[in-house]
């Protein structure tokens, strides 16, 4: 049985929707900026759901007024890592919140092989399950090049 028939990684906001266009991304960024969030760009080629901390592409962008700056950074990241996962994150610095308020994927590899479920039998015939990303069989940097 396939629980995710599109075979796409679904992490963060909007991940069950079709990919956001640049205009839609810009509107989301504008929304975040109006709320006073600081945007940052991150990328990875290890899409495991528990891989929380991706690599930062540049510094988080504080005090921006317009989405163009974030879009410029995103364009730079897409150029450098066209076949990686790239996400935008909005940090809310309000006292008491001080964490990520928005996060969504804006770039995906062309083909996403998905995950396998590995079963491991331990003492007493207990089964331990492990989610395994097929992409990570290859070394870092070569995972989505093919």
């Amino acid at each position: 049985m396939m629980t995710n028939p599109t075979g796409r990684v679904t992490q963060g906001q909007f991940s069950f929707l079709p990919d956001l266009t640049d205009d839609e991304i810009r509107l989301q960024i504008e929304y975040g900026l109006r709320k006073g969030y600081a945007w940052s760009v991150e990328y990875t080629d290890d899409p495991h759901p528990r891989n929380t901390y991706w690599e930062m592409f540049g510094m988080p962008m504080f005090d921006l007024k317009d989405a163009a700056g974030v879009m410029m950074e995103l364009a730079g990241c897409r150029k450098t890592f066209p076949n990686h996962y790239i996400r935008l994150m909005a940090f809310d610095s309000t006292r008491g919140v001080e964490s990520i308020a928005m996060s969504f994927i804006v770039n995906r590899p062309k083909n996403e092989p998905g995950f396998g479920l590995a079963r491991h039998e331990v003492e007493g015939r207990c089964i331990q399950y492990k989610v395994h990303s097929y992409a990570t069989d290859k070394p870092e940097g070569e995972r989505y090049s093919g």
Partner: protein
Amino acid sequence: MSTPLYSIPGTAPAASAPEAAAPAAGARTVNEVLAKSQVEAVMDELDRDLIGLAPVKQRIRDIAALLVIDKLRANLGFAADGKHSAPSLHMCFTGNPGTGKTTVALRIAEILHRLGYVRKGHVVSVTRDDLVGQYIGHTAPKTKEVLKRAMGGVLFIDEAYYLYRPENERDYGQEAIEILLQVMENNRDDLVVILAGYKDRMDTFFKSNPGMSSRIAHHIDFPDYSSGELLQIAERMLQAQHYRFGEGAHEAFAQYLQRRMQQPHFANARSVRNALDRARLRAASRLFADRDRVLTEADLTTLMPADILASRVFQAPAS
């Protein structure tokens, strides 16, 4: 990419008409554009609030007129083809200290915002320290960060000639200039760069950076104020602070200006403001000394000739 099945708030239904979102969509006459963008109000304010600066005001009117006409042309479909249909609006303000370069930059940002050429209309004011890093690899992120903050508005670089230091060939200023040029060219729709500085130093700066000079469409020179204009400026400043010149103080201040203008380091309106601040200090001391007097409203708002004549410039031998 396939078009989405849902409508995106904030975008026009026809995906190929980004101009439609601009404030003056569909206007056919100059008046309609002006009425919709309220740019006339800002220009009137500019005329009213800023004394003198006739060539500067004329140039700003010209630029505003061009932008209004461009808007009308765009409505009729005559926009220049390609992505960069917006005219280049990068500017350079040259002039002596205190001639109003920063003030005018703030107004320009508002005019451009009302006409829809910059989306947010804020001004980010920086100097060399904000753009140039201290070690290798520090400059590019620093400059880019400032540029990203300025996007959607106006980047005002004060004393821009400091960016380039010919005497030190390993200076990182050159790197900042290169990034600046690249963004000025590629992101012309996103931000307007205004360089400001003294005339002679800016000239040498442009001579050594011809790329910068050619990418700046508008070179505006700010003339020095005449003594009459400076007096008017002084009156304005006092009015804003609820002060006024007492009997004879106006003439005393005119004399003060005559003498001060001959001295070195005269900074036009800024010197006037400093002189008035010092006169207020002296007025306060004068009132403070007389402890038992009941101070009326007139006492508290009037600058007397003595407050001005006590200045250093009157004591210096007239040489």
